[in-house]
């Protein structure tokens, strides 16, 4: 008795590829000679392979070569923008960026204008400190501030800047910083 159908099916693909040793091949061929089912599977499988090998199966669509040729001719340009989708995505992004950029620019201008309005000298303030300065009466450190400084707290006392310096007060590094003090001192 030779091999059974299952063994044939296990080896049938290798048989078609001529990957079996001569002994196995003879065993399969003997089986095909007496088993119509397996002969049918072999014929059908070989037929399937031949159909798929045919150039017409899974062939590129009509015009493929011409379109490819056209794209190759576009050369470098085409490789920068590799697909129609990418081009579309790029164009949409660019279109969206224009109003967005304009909006950001406008917003920035509005904010800057407001800041300038609040502080006409601009920032950082380099104008000399003149007139009244403020001190916190109950503060331990002897520091004088420009009115409005966040470090002012408690009961405030206002005095001319010259007097504050004379009394040993030093300028607040936050609100006065490197602003010049009056030359008189």
């Amino acid at each position, binding site marked *: 008795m030779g091999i059974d*159908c299952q063994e044939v099916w296990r080896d049938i*693909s290798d048989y078609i590829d001529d*990957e079996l040793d001569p002994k196995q091949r003879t065993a399969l061929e003997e089986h*095909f000679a007496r088993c119509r*089912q397996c002969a049918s599977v*072999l014929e059908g499988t070989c037929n399937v392979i031949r159909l798929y*090998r045919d150039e017409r199966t*899974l062939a590129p669509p009509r015009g493929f070569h011409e379109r490819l040729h056209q794209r*190759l001719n576009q*050369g470098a340009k085409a490789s920068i923008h590799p697909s129609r989708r990418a081009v579309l995505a790029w164009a949409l992004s660019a279109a969206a960026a224009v109003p967005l950029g304009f909006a950001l620019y406008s917003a920035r201008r509005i904010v800057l204008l407001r800041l300038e309005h609040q502080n006409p000298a601009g920032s950082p303030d380099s104008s000399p400190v003149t007139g009244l300065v403020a001190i916190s009466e109950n503060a331990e450190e002897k520091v004088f501030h420009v009115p409005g400084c966040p470090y002012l707290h408690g009961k405030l006392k206002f005095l001319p800047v010259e007097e504050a310096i004379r009394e040993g007060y030093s300028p607040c590094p936050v609100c006065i910083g490197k602003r010049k003090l009056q030359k008189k001192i």
Partner: protein
Amino acid sequence: MNAIFGGTTALADRDSRESEFIETRMYASITADDAKINARKERIRATEQVLIGRILKGEKDLFVELIRPYQRTVYATLVTMLGSKEDAEDVSQEVLLKALARLDQFRRESAFGTWLIQIAINEAKMRKRKLRLGKMFSLTNGAEQDGAYVPKDFADWREIPSEALERSEIREALANALSLLEEHYRLTFVLRDVNELSIEETANVLGISCGAVKTRLRRARLMLRDILAPGLCQGGEVSLAFKKEVRKPWE
């Protein structure tokens, strides 16, 4: 079209001598095909070495000639992986443009066709990642969709293959049958049986062993045969010898 793939009911009327004759002829013709394929590959390889040299020296117009034999190979691989003709064409163009741009990186010890397929597979994976197409396909029972099997005289089949492919519905049926397989079967089958790579080349492209290629190939071929010849699994009309077998051939 069922008669094309060999029908068991038609076979019941045949005697074993006829079966043996056809089997021997089938096998002989497939191996003869292989010999022709190898001879053709050798011819192509000899000319492409010259072409690549000239292209790299600046004759870029020759690139069209270089890739002409591989257009179907690249397209078939991509349409099999992506499932859409439009995407397959789009990615095919990208693959071939990339091949032109990277031609200087092509190492000549491998075949140019295999190198192209590797680029194609990588591009297809990237496109699928973008489109999240990974699980679009699954194995379904194609035999059920094909309806009733109408046996024809078995002697017809020899004439049918080349003529049948002129009909678009036959080409569609072949593409659809392939799309029913799981991707690793589909891809192995396409590389080996559509693109005509050797088992070793297929193994190299997929990064798997030759044994794994053979296993996938066996299953893919038998599944396709079964999908395309639904009459094989129909009860009632098949012979007793086949009925005894509970397992499918690819199991």
